[in-house]
């Protein structure tokens, strides 16, 4: 047992740290710290900076233009990114589709799409969920019918995160109604500029149009845009989900959130003392911090197993549940910490280019919006209820 990083790992960490110190634009740091909405350009700017250094795709093998890091290195990188308040890397192309194409895509698909993900030419979004297919993803109904060397796609996807920025969407579509629902699904790459694709934004409770509905009306998709075999899409989808679930604990986000919470609690005065000295408030922060300390180590235990080549299985469900609950509780405490200044609706002030200053202290502006927005953490990527079911089946064998 050794809880500490090795020399190489420490050296790597220092290298990441100094690169971020030099290259991460202060403008972006400021936006991330204040919880401002990042624009498409902000994301693209940051992706380009990381790509220049070869660090945009830490999880991709070097052969495909990635950094080829192991799980511990990736963990260190994520940790340093959140510590430095860098924008998160948008996961759809880099974290999700990339690995699927590398494992199941044709040579032509790999050669064409992977470089475009790195260069930012393509912005991908994820078309899995449908109005009737949420937790029960295998019940997707969007159909793709063969018509010569094309598929004709009809149906609707929903909850498509940042679909408004995307020019490409990877979808689960139904190519057969025979057999078990999982057996008639294919994995299709669709150009969102094709005729018949319509995107409608959905505003969430924080006031942001973060997700979308995507409609397909007789959309013609070349057969060569199918990944892998027809009707085998479920296998690829599940593989992608295991990638969706890396860094699922969000330890970095929790650490950053906790530091921010403590900073606010030091600045806020309650009863003539800093709020952080209020024993009841302090106790709640302490309980979260204690939980987070242990969870970081749970996370590292899983990460180091993964680095040694053992794919994380049901353990990732432990990280998903504990990690999201901790982050949500930090958000709730942060909302409490800002007191009455949690009440102003700051949506406009959080937009880029807004000339409205904050109503109260600047740290208060995003507190409620973030609390509301992060209710999603326990819903998406397999809800916490679904994760508990996975755990009780896989680890408890109930």
């Amino acid at each position, binding site marked *: 047992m050794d809880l500490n990083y090795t020399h190489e790992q420490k050296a790597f960490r220092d290298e990441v740290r100094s690169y971020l110190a030099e290259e991460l634009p202060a403008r972006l740091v400021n936006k991330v710290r204040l919880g401002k909405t990042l624009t498409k350009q902000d994301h693209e700017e940051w992706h380009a900076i990381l790509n220049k250094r070869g660090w945009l795709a830490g999880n991709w093998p070097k052969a495909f233009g990635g950094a080829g890091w192991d799980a511990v290195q990736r963990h260190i990188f994520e940790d340093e990114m959140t510590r430095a308040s860098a924008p998160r890397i948008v996961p759809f192309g880099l974290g999700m589709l990339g690995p699927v194409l590398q494992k199941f895509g044709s040579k032509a698909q790999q050669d064409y799409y992977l470089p475009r993900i790195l260069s930012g030419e393509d912005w991908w979004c994820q078309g899995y*969920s449908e109005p*009737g297919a*949420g*937790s*029960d993803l295998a*019940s997707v109904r969007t159909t793709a019918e063969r018509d010569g060397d094309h598929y004709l796609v009809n149906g609707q996807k*929903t*909850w498509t995160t940042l679909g408004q920025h995307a020019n490409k969407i990877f979808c689960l579509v139904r190519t057969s109604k025979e057999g078990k629902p999982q057996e008639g699904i294919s994995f299709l790459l669709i150009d969102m500029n094709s005729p018949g694709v319509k995107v409608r934004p*959905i*505003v*969430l*409770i924080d*006031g942001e149009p973060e*997700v979308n509905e995507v409609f397909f009306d007789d959309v013609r998709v070349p057969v060569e845009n199918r990944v892998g075999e027809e009707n085998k899409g479920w296998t690829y989808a599940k593989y992608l989900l295991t990638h969706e679930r890396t860094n699922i604990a969000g330890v970095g986000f929790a650490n950053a959130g906790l530091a921010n919470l403590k900073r606010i609690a030091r600045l*806020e*005065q*309650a*009863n*003539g003392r800093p*709020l952080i000295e*209020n*024993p*009841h*408030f302090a106790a*709640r922060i302490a309980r979260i911090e204690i939980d987070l300390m242990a969870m970081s180590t749970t996370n590292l235990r899983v990460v180091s197993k993964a680095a040694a080549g053992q794919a994380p299985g049901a353990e990732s469900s432990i990280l998903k549940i504990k990690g999201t609950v901790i982050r*949500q509780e930090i958000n*709730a405490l942060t*909302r*409490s910490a800002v*007191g*009455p*200044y*949690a*009440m*102003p*609706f700051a949506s406009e002030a959080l937009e880029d280019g807004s000339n409205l200053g904050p*109503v*109260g*202290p600047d740290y208060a502006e995003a507190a*409620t919006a973030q*609390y*509301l927005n992060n*209710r*999603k953490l*326990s*819903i*998406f990527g397999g*809800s*916490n*209820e679904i994760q*508990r*079911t996975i755990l009780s089946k896989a680890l408890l064998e109930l």
Partner: protein
Amino acid sequence: MNFELTEERQMLQDGLRRYLRDSYTPSIRAELKECDRGYSRDVWSGLAEMGVIGALFAEDDGGFAGSGFDIAVVFEELGRVGAVDPLIDTAILGGGLIAALGNDAQKPVIDAVIDGSVQLAFAYGEPASRYDLSRVETSATRDGDGFVLNGRKAVVINAPAADQILVSARTSGDAADRDGISLFLVSASTPGMTLRSYPLVSGGQAAELLLEDVRLGSDALLGDEGGAFEAITHAQARATLAISAEALGLMESIRQLTTDYLKTRKQFGKPIGKFQALQHRMADVLIEIEQARSAVINLAGHIDHPEEIREKHVSATKNLIGNVAKLVTEESIQMHGGIGMTDEYELGHLAKRLIMVDHRFGDAIYHLERFISLAVA
């Protein structure tokens, strides 16, 4: 023991429920989101006409009810539809304080409140005061016959629509002293007072108030100079009852929406309400809402008791309401899945209104600490 409503209150409840159900149509909700006043004038006049505002005042003050249970009945109904009408600000706080402290020249404002023609706001919080009523740094200094006010007031709800604003200011003592706090009735158009208006997460509007050499005549003073604290505490107790009852109404509607959803939303070939994991959590929500109802009843029954008894119930109720509100909000969103995250769906507004209850009149932690000190004392 009798926990049934009296006949009068039952009638008030039935009438108000019908009126609000008919008034809070989807189109009015959409309008309200865009409106700079924060509430609908039509709904407001309807409430006045029905006597709902009058039910919040005692007969001596020109109303016809005004007890704790009247407040509870009215606000639970307002909560059920997620109403955004500023009844707490105009009637309970503004009107209540004028009823408690006003002189004969000031009292007629209450009639105008009851008939729906006047809007009020109460500016007591300050950027550094958090939930402490005694922490007043805004100053009022004698100036000949009148006063000059300087300072800043924070998150003053309904200020953008208010004709008159009640402003607390210190005429003597140190920042946290109970003595030395005075209350002034200030017309919204008084020179030197500027408003920065903004919408609230829970609907409605508020403003930051900047007071720069605001000159007032002596007739603006409400009650005795330096002696407003007790009345402010009592008014806030009544407002805490109102918002707690409103929270209860919100919880009831959210519970109904969520159970309906569990019955209709199908995944894996059956309604999700068939999964025991969700059934048990919904059962916990139900239990906690019953606790919230009892806490509101406790506070309503003690609202006009002597201060030590009353304030213990204030803190007990508000602490419990804050905790249950968090549970109900979070569980309802979670059990709805993605739909629960959307602004368009009815739950969104109700859930946001419910969670914001914790940020008025002291949150769960504030009242936990306060309850401990009151219980020990």
